[in-house]
């Protein structure tokens, strides 16, 4: 074989990088765990039931621990699925979701304390749902369509909750409980668990 020209060498490097990137995108595209989402949905329903029992829709003593437990469950299930599918844990769809969701959840926490301090806790359900939905929609660009639709629906449910705060708890249950479960089941059936 002749000595490769500089142009050939650069093209080869770029082509190998393209192949690596494409394979990574394809393999992590379905790496979001459906089981994880269903379990997180269960936590959402349990939190909604506890809030309903206590007669306080946005009870922070319930929803903050529920959020922390949900994040831990999501991380554990996604790591397990990535290992099962033999794909990198910290790459592609999961990495992007994590990068987008971290500041989103931070802003959610900030608004939670601001709205509580301002004496408007009735706006918390809508704020949580809409912010979470915005984060998921942005972060799911490289993931399966179901995740993107879940984000859009969360924004919609959040918008309703902001203008109809009296439905707050029902919408929290529908979003963090029902929607997580429905989308999780869809991913389980279509994308291997």
């Amino acid at each position, binding site marked *: 074989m002749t000595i490769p020209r500089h142009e050939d060498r650069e093209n080869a490097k770029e082509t190998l990088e393209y192949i690596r990137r494409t394979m990574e995108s*394809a393999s992590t595209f379905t790496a979001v765990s459906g089981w994880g989402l269903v379990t997180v949905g269960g936590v959402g329903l349990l939190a909604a039931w506890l809030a309903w029992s206590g007669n306080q829709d946005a009870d922070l003593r319930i929803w903050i621990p529920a959020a922390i437990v949900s994040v831990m469950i999501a991380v554990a299930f996604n790591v397990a699925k990535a290992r099962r599918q033999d794909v990198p844990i910290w790459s592609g769809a999961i990495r992007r979701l994590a990068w987008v969701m971290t500041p989103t959840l931070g802003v959610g926490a900030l608004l939670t304390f601001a709205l509580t301090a301002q004496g408007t806790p009735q706006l918390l359900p809508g704020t949580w749902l809409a912010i979470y939905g915005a984060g998921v929609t942005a972060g799911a660009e490289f993931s399966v369509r179901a995740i993107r639709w879940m984000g859009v629906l969360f924004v919609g449910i959040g918008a309703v909750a902001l203008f109809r705060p009296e439905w707050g708890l029902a919408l929290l249950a529908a979003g963090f409980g029902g929607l997580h479960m429905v989308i999780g089941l869809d991913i389980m059936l279509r994308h291997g668990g």
Partner: protein
Amino acid sequence: MAGSAVSDELDRLIHERMRLGIVSALAAEDSMSFADLKHVLRTSDGNLSVHARKLEEAGYIKVSKGYEDRKPKTDYRLTAKGRRALEGYLEKMEAILSEARDALERS
């Protein structure tokens, strides 16, 4: 790489960027739907269809058509021939880099 001695040795069918993307994505996943493949490769319906058909005609990928929720669904899978073609292509790319490195060390 058009016109160089090196590029003449490459599999022209998967040297084209979109077809290389299809084969690479299918090498990573057992099977992908048309919609998922389109999303991963960020391309249009028409572009993906044209290139997938060429790969199918060459026997590099296998296409199966069916229905899901009463909507038509097309799934793609890499064949053994397609996998060998990608492996051969990767070896060529690695050989180019290795020879370039050797030439650099000699100079």
